[in-house]
């Protein structure tokens, strides 16, 4: 699937990812859609702990926390009028399981084991994931993961839905292998 020189790089990426136990990072998400003159900016924090613990927390403009701890997935959204977090019990939360599984795979370097996406590495240290399922490609046409120059950490993610609609997520201040309390993945705090 990959030219040999690139395959080496892919192996290197996977090897480096194997040494990662935890990731903590801030992120800035820019959602671009045709009808908005300016992108919708969201900010938050990501916490990941192997094998499958994830906390994806938005702080701006809408506070929400998605927590995954193995099979258990829960989401809370800040209700301004009640001044507290309330559980989001919509079926959409269960569909976030797939998203969290994808993120765990990327952060773990398991790009080529991905049953949902075909992974290709390009020269500029970009891994492009294209949906294997035709139905899914009508939702997301491609995901590009941009790796940093100095390491194999993911610096930027582009989720391309269509020519006019895409989401860019930039990770900042990444901390690798810092101790992360398990409660981060099960409690709002």
């Amino acid at each position: 699937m990959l030219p040999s020189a690139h395959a080496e790089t892919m192996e290197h990426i996977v090897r480096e990812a194997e040494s990662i136990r935890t990731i903590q990072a801030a992120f800035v998400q820019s959602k671009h859609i045709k009808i908005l003159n300016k992108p919708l900016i969201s900010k938050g924090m990501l916490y990941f702990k192997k094998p499958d613990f994830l906390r994806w927390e938005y702080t701006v403009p809408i506070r929400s926390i998605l927590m995954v701890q193995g099979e258990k997935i829960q989401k809370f959204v800040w209700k301004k009028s009640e001044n507290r977090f309330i559980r989001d019990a919509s079926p959409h939360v269960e569909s976030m399981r797939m998203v969290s599984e994808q993120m765990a795979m990327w952060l773990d370097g398991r790009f080529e084991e991905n049953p949902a996406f075909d992974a290709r590495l390009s020269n500029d240290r970009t891994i492009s994931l294209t949906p294997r399922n035709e139905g899914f490609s009508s939702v997301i046409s491609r995901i590009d993961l941009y790796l940093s120059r100095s390491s194999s950490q993911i610096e930027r993610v582009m989720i391309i839905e269509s020519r006019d609609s895409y989401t860019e997520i930039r990770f900042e201040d990444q901390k690798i292998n810092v101790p992360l309390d398990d409660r981060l993945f099960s409690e709002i705090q």
Partner: protein
Amino acid sequence: MKRCFCLIICAVWLLFAACGNISSHLPKFSIEPSSDVFLECRQLFSNQSRQYVHSIEATFPGGAGGFLVGAAKVIPQSENIDCAIMTLEGLTVLEASFKSGANPVVHKSLPPFDKLPLINRMEDDLRLLLLAPQGNAVKAGTTEDGIHTCRYQDIYSNSVDLQVLDSGNWRIRKYDKTGKLIRNVDMKICRKHAGFGMTVPCRMDLAAYGRHGYQLSMELISMEVLP
């Protein structure tokens, strides 16, 4: 026993009092010859093109619902609205254009937003929330509760009452041709957006009544006036 009876009476009274706040039928009101009330009502909807981003909490019967982000571009002159509904994580679940007098044009839709009745209801709600009422202004005056009210009626005999409350907040009520209340919208005005030269609701609570009733609570995230 006597205390328990009093509590029941109080509970029943509170229930009636709460229901009394929302009359389910088209209310009568005294007509004022002065056009001041109409001028007041006209402030509610600007003629400037603009775009909004809101957080949306939807609640359906049985407690089902969820949180979404809605973006809308409103062109009052042509009465056109472009809208997009996204998950908080940024996935677009609906992109549609609503042109006046035409069928909705859906650019992208994921379940459950791929159902035409839902898209039509969404168009009706967006028009009620973001554009001046359809049809003619038929009267303006004060209700029995002393609320300044402007009434509009469309070609299907649906009525929309715009009300300016003492608090400075607004209320919109839509009645069907039989006079039955079908929508109630409470709009909270925030001062921080007053710089746009128009009054902007920072919170809108819409209740849809009937067999498929639902509630939408919308908080303003951003608003931009378009050139």
